[in-house]
């Protein structure tokens, strides 16, 4: 039996706050407490919760952008936080991230081509692609997210919010990852633009077989893209179930509140 795509085991992250008084121990905050879940390839997981519930901390740990206090993140059975830096860099090919703010996450001084090519250049693997191959890959990826080849030389400010999020998705897809961690990918967008980006994410799921770890405060969006849903409050996963079950028989009171808010 092959290992699942992503396994998160008893993941904890404790942050130390500034000392209030020199003779007292520094206060701590447990941002993430014993988070465990498994994502099988093709079964996207949505994480919902309010601000401060630890969902972005979880995303950062899964992306190996932060080190856990305790616990493991296994991608294809490989513990990301135990890998030497070089091996981690090579492993990053398989997991990429899309951020919330399409204005803040793209470097305003870089052309679209350079932005989208950057993950390829950063991979630093022995069998690196030639420049021509990279260019070809960037073009193909941009086309698949609905941008034109003539957009390659443009800068981020020349695009609308929805188009920028397409560029961010193209950047995440360019290494052909198996997992994309998307932190509130559509919450900065208008309703009609949001629908276009969600459709793109569905298409990419089908075209490239990407699995999402989708973070959102909106249950309807999670329900649209994900097979399973985890509900978080105060650093803990309080409910984890298939989307349909969360929808029809929510167990936790906070899940019910979220459901209530999503109904018209």
């Amino acid at each position: 039996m092959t290992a699942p795509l992503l396994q998160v085991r008893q993941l904890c992250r404790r942050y130390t706050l500034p000392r209030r008084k020199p003779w007292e121990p520094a206060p701590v905050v447990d941002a993430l407490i014993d988070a465990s879940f498994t994502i099988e390839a093709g079964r996207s997981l949505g994480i919902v919760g309010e601000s401060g519930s630890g969902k972005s901390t979880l995303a950062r740990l899964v992306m190996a952008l932060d080190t856990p206090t305790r616990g493991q993140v296994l991608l294809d059975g490989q513990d990301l936080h135990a890998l030497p830096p070089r091996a981690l860099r090579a492993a990053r090919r398989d997991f990429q991230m899309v951020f919330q703010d399409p204005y803040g996450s793209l470097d305003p001084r870089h052309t679209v081509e350079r932005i989208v090519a950057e993950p390829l250049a950063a991979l630093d693997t022995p069998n690196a692609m030639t420049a021509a191959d990279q260019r070809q890959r960037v073009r193909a990826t941009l086309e698949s997210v609905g941008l034109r080849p003539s957009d390659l030389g443009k800068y981020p400010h020349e695009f609308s919010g929805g188009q920028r999020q397409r560029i961010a998705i193209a950047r995440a897809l360019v290494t052909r990852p198996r997992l994309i961690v998307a932190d509130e990918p559509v919450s900065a967008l208008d309703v009609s633009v949001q629908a276009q980006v969600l459709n793109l994410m569905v298409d990419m799921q089908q075209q490239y077989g990407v699995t999402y770890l989708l973070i959102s405060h909106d249950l309807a969006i999670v329900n649209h893209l994900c097979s399973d849903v985890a509900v978080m409050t105060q650093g803990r996963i309080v409910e984890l179930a298939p989307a349909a079950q969360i929808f029809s028989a929510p167990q936790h009171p906070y899940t019910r509140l979220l459901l209530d808010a999503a109904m018209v």
Partner: protein
Amino acid sequence: MPLLDVQNLRVDLRTHRGSTAAVRSVSFALEHGDTLGLVGESGCGKSLTALALMGLLPEAAQVSGSIRLQGQELIGLDEPALCRLRGNRIAMVFQEPMTALNPLHRIGQQVAEPLRRHQGLGAAAARTEALALLQRVGIPQAAQRLDQYPHQFSGGQRQRITIAMALACKPALLLADEPTTALDVTVQRQILDLIQGLVQEHRMGLLLVSHDLGLIARNTARLLVMYGGSVVESGPTASVLQAAAHPYTRGLLAARPRLQPHAAPHAPGGAQRLPTIAGTVPELADLPPGCPFAGRCGWTQPRCHTEVPPNVPQATPAHSARCLRPEALEAQP
């Protein structure tokens, strides 16, 4: 006489591409105790409409038409007259409570400020009144917290404080521009319930501006849907949401992911596509002189670009949509 009567409100903005109309002939009325929602996507003119009512438009804006508050014309009033009005008869709750509050002043003083300014209360009387207001909006241990600064409160509490400020002088009209967009879902519900309760208590008129159709649906009796600076559809909230007539309103409603069990199970590739609205919102300067939705609408005819669409009444009384093509409004979605 209605509490608020807006007729042919127009706001022109000076941009680098010349003067463009950001709000075009918007008309509506609001009675005491009435709740009206203003919904639309970014750039549709909903916030500018609210700012025009407050006399807070940016310098580069030119406003025309008529805004009557209890019979008094507000357009053309000078700044001192507007100052006597703001925070007194009209008050506004903004999106970002941290920017709406002054970080250097204690919250007790900030809530007391309109009372001292408009009602001439002394410092002690204003402080007592401010305490009562903070208690009414649900700030725990208000007496002890009067002398704290905004950064010592959570986002939801800060929004409660700005609501207390807005209500200090018992305004006749309350404007709320995206009051809960910066807040968590659970807090959002509490803040809206608070606003609802206060509106009923004081028989205020409420104008709620939001991009969120669900929020408008739960909190208003009537709504206006704006697109490209115009009101494209208006009517009782339930009727507009259940029997949306304008192609834009329909597109907007269909584009939202629904919270319902999927027909197909969540097999790989099981998620369905959402219907989208073709094209993108044009820049203000590029809006056609006729219907603003012309070109993006599936029913577009050549005359849509040039002729201003009439207001077509719908089955439910007071529900109407602006469109040149009755067959587009009657089409089954």
